[in-house]
């Protein structure tokens, strides 16, 4: 709770690794509190990607030449780094996509083709990002299935007793986020999975907001699908991961057709490549995948336990500081939270607040954060969101607090 907690994380050194954190905006040092939207990149990642385009670039899986062999090897090594990071059994279960959104869309399409028919039910939660709502709605429309929603309470915690009531013999899949991007809630996904598995129902976990904050172990969770984006875990944008249990990935059809995902193509019949290539049609974002692997190595090097420790202290400190300000209300007060703070200042529109914070060099996000149902729950149009990661400091919280005081003064009439 104190500013001087004895942390085993060298923030000064870490911040040196992120060139953008030393930039100025409007002549002021950048205070980057929009990590929920995207995270910044350490030089190790930037240099890895830069180096690929300077010295190593070549299309993977197709070449007969030196560069292509090297690139293919690096790409497959990246797959293994991802596998290790999330503790999956095999690289055949790791598919590179464009990001969380495309991973969820892939499952909604492919799983839907195989397993969803008229009258079936799909369960999501009220706090999902639009990316974990809309693909399922599209599937429901296509197959005449129904979407069921687990509600959350005013603290921002899921109502598991309601969830147990929603699950029935028509339920085909459950899709929930492990951490909410707008409320910060860390959901008890293990419990959610166990309840579904007791009825043989598979679960997809949206890991977009947990991968940068906590321990991810797909084997311990026993989730059937897990999705995340590279850019939210200090890696490049345009690359993401879909983890799926082999038994499902073998059974469900590919969602895109093209090069590399096929075994044999004739105009009469095409047979598909084996896993994971069956789900990687076309030239993939291999520099992105390799950059992502570098980012995961960077995170591992700092140590997840150190990240959790620092962020916990930061979360406690920031919560206390925000709660101390008269007229500030935090939305999302779950017991178990990531370092995300959605809040409103009394009588100030979040957009106005965001505009002033911007000119102070403080980057936050305002609006609905792609979670309109969450805003509807609280009957508000949007919030100001400060989202922090391991490179954020207690001093940055102080600057945010100071900014809020200035805003209160500006709009005080």
């Amino acid at each position, binding site marked *: 709770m104190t500013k001087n907690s004895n942390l085993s994380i060298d923030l000064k050194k870490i911040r040196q690794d992120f060139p953008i954190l030393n930039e100025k905006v*409007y*002549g002021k040092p950048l205070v980057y509190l929009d990590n929920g939207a995207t995270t910044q990149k350490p030089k190790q990642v930037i240099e890895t990607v830069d180096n690929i385009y300077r010295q190593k670039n070549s299309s993977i899986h197709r070449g007969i030449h030196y560069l292509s062999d090297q690139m293919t090897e690096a790409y497959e090594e990246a797959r293994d780094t991802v596998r290790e990071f999330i503790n999956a059994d095999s690289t055949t279960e790791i598919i590179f996509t464009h990001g969380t959104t495309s991973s969820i869309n892939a499952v909604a399409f492919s799983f839907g083709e195989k397993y969803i028919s008229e009258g079936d039910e799909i369960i999501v939660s009220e706090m999902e990002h639009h990316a974990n709502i809309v693909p399922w709605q599209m599937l429901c429309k296509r197959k005449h299935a129904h979407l069921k929603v687990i509600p959350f309470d005013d603290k921002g915690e899921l109502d598991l007793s309601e969830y147990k009531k929603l699950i029935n013999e028509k339920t085909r899949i459950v899709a929930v986020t492990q951490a909410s991007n707008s409320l910060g809630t860390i959901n008890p996904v293990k419990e959610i999975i166990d309840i579904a598995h007791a009825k043989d129902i598979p679960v997809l976990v949206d890991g977009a907001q947990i991968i940068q904050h906590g321990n991810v172990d797909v084997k311990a969770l026993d989730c059937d699908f897990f999705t995340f984006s590279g850019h939210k875990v200090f890696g490049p944008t345009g690359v993401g991961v879909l983890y799926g249990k082999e038994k499902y990935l073998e059974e469900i059809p590919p969602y895109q057709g093209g090069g590399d995902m096929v075994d044999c193509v004739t105009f009469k019949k095409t047979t598909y490549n084996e896993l994971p290539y069956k789900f990687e049609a076309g030239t993939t974002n291999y520099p992105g995948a390799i950059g992502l692997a570098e980012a995961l190595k960077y995170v591992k090097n700092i140590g997840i336990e150190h990240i959790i420790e620092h962020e916990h202290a930061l979360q406690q400190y920031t919560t206390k500081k925000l709660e101390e300000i008269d007229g500030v209300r935090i939305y999302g007060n779950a017991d178990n939270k990531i370092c995300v703070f959605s809040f409103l200042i009394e009588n100030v*529109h979040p*957009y106005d607040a965001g*505009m002033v914070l911007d*000119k102070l060099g403080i980057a936050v996000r*305002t609006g609905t954060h792609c979670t309109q149902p969450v805003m509807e729950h609280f009957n508000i*149009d949007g919030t100001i969101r400060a989202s922090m990661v391991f490179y954020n400091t207690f001093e940055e919280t102080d600057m945010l607090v100071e900014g809020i005081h200035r805003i209160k003064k500006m709009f005080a009439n």
Partner: protein
Amino acid sequence: MFEDWLDKYDYLIELGNELPEISDQFKTDEYLINGCQSKVWLNAEYKDGKVYYQADSDAIIVKGIAALLVKTLNGETPDDIINTELHFIDKIGLKQNLSPTRSNGLLAMVKKMKLFAIAYKAKN
């Protein structure tokens, strides 16, 4: 530098507060320009060959920019409004507020102001 911006925003807040209240009958969904971030309401009236606007927003700085736009175009003829280019927004450093990605309703407001002018021109 921030102090300059503070002054600018203070001025916009003032303009926003001074903007005559839009009548309740126009503060409905029919007159709403829904940005994802903030809402803007706009109505126009035609009198003696000239267009007069009324606007409102739930965000006060946005309302201030709306007031600037209303001040600039109020009392002009439909032709002048249709042909005007709002370079001054750019010049005073508020261009980003009229970017399509900001989705605060202001860009759509400018479009709708011109549409009102086009409609009045066609009618008369």
